[in-house]
């Protein structure tokens, strides 16, 4: 029972971590809490659904419920959601930057953007739920006492691969280093010849792409609905802050801790209290480390 709860926690945490990385990038580089990130998650999930509809269900790959169409949809959705995120920036946030708006204006603008984006989802796809696949899956024993659906194993494996790729991007590529430099000091980054607007564009694209992956992963477990992004938004912020804003490893560990807190709490308290557990953990950690587990003191 304990092993199963830990496995479920890690699985939930992997998806939360992908979303939390986007939140963390926003807090550190864009310098505001982007509440519209939840809707990028929802849009990412629905854009992938459109591709799956167009391409047809196809033949399932091995034990998974989906075929190659969903893999292609995942890639296309990540690219398109990156573009969508960029569009949101161009239409709303770039204008606020140009006017030197207060950071609170950015936060409230992101609330507005989130509401509009969510209602457009309802307008296009309706209030109901959707599925990438109606294939039934049987859980398999992956470790003694731990059973997972094959789709869940796929989600976990891909999430790990994406985090590793992102780590390489941030530490090995010039754009990644420029993003980290700007996260620490935009003023110094500027005099190093870094074009700030270019880094901001990259941040939106990357956040959008990661949100799309998180959206598809959520959609695989097991359905899509217009509030799917919003329903995990607080958990994403909890994970980003718990791990330490600006730290990739922090967002990942924060995501895992949130997932574990939610699932392990089921062993001792009722399911109704599940979503509150990460916040208790957050308060506890911030009491001892206000900058989060991997965050830097300012």
């Amino acid at each position, binding site marked *: 029972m304990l092993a199963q709860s830990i496995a479920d926690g890690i699985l939930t945490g992997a998806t939360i971590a992908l979303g939390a990385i986007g939140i963390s990038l926003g807090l550190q580089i864009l310098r505001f809490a982007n509440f519209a990130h939840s809707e990028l998650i929802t849009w990412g999930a629905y854009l992938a659904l459109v591709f799956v509809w167009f391409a047809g269900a196809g033949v399932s790959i091995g034990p998974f419920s989906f075929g190659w169409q969903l893999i292609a949809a995942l890639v296309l959705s990540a690219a398109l959601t990156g573009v969508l995120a960029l569009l949101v920036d161009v239409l709303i946030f770039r204008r606020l930057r140009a006017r030197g708006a207060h950071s609170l204006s950015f936060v409230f603008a992101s609330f507005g953007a989130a509401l509009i984006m969510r209602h457009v989802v309802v307008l296009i796809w309706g209030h109901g739920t959707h599925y990438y696949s109606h294939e039934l899956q049987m859980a398999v024993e992956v470790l003694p006492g731990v059973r997972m659906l094959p789709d869940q194993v796929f989600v976990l494996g891909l999430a790990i691969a994406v985090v590793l790729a992102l780590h390489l991007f941030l*530490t090995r590529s*010039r754009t990644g*280093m*420029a993003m*980290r*430099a700007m*996260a*620490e*000091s935009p*003023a*110094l*980054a*500027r*005099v*190093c*010849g*870094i*074009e*700030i607007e270019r880094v901001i564009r990259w941040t939106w694209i990357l956040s959008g792409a990661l949100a799309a992956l998180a959206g598809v992963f959520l959609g695989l477990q097991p359905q899509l609905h217009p509030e799917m992004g919003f329903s995990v938004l607080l958990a994403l912020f909890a994970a980003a802050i718990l791990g330490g804003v600006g730290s990739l490893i922090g967002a990942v560990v924060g995501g895992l801790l949130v997932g574990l807190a939610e699932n392990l709490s089921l062993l001792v308290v009722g399911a109704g209290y599940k979503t509150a557990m990460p916040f208790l953990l957050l308060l506890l950690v911030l009491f001892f480390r206000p900058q989060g587990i991997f965050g*830097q003191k300012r």
Partner: protein
Amino acid sequence: MSDVLLEVQDVVAGYVPGLPIVHGVSLEVSAREVVSIIGPNGAGKSTLLKALIGMVPVAAGRVTLLGGDVTGLPSHALVMRGLAFVPQTGNIFSTLTVQENLIVGGHTIATRLADRLGRAFDAFPDLASKRRQKASVLSGGQRQMLAIARALMTDPRVVLLDEPTAGLAPKVVAEVFADLRRLAELDVAVLMVEQNAKAALRVSDRGYVLVEGRNRHAGEAAALLADPALGAAFLGQRPGA
């Protein structure tokens, strides 16, 4: 003067529109020169440097770099045209490693990054042994060396330095000034703002004295050092000493 790399003509600049701190300053920096800007606190020295690198808006006047008008250009465009800046504080990325700091410093370089990294480590051997360490572990002097090495990654023609020796031990101050003199010999022009005016003028070719955001004196560094009135007012010398 021939071979002028940076020419500043009647520049007016300040943080808030309509409230200038720099009121029409003019100066020139030529190839292989070390030029110091000295003056009392609040003279607008640092603001002038920040205006030259695009961090503070230039309200009036003209800045010419390598013969081209660069007035009002953003910082990244100025860096690409051969200007570099070492701020007084926060001049390194402490969360990045030493090597990453240098790579970020060379952000605008399209090719030969490895060569330039090698050159930076040759010029500052103390940094080479710490290349994989976070910059936050460096001593004050090493941080300043890293800040200068970072600024040099783009092969700038003119380097602006804001208080390069602030907070450093006397022995390290001498090393930093020696490094700056060496830069000039490598065909890089240096324009620095320094509170340690006497020491700065000793390694400089020429100097400018700013008072209340305006040019007050200018001339050869040796002449400024020898001027008794100037010495009493700005160099901490007693009259007649």
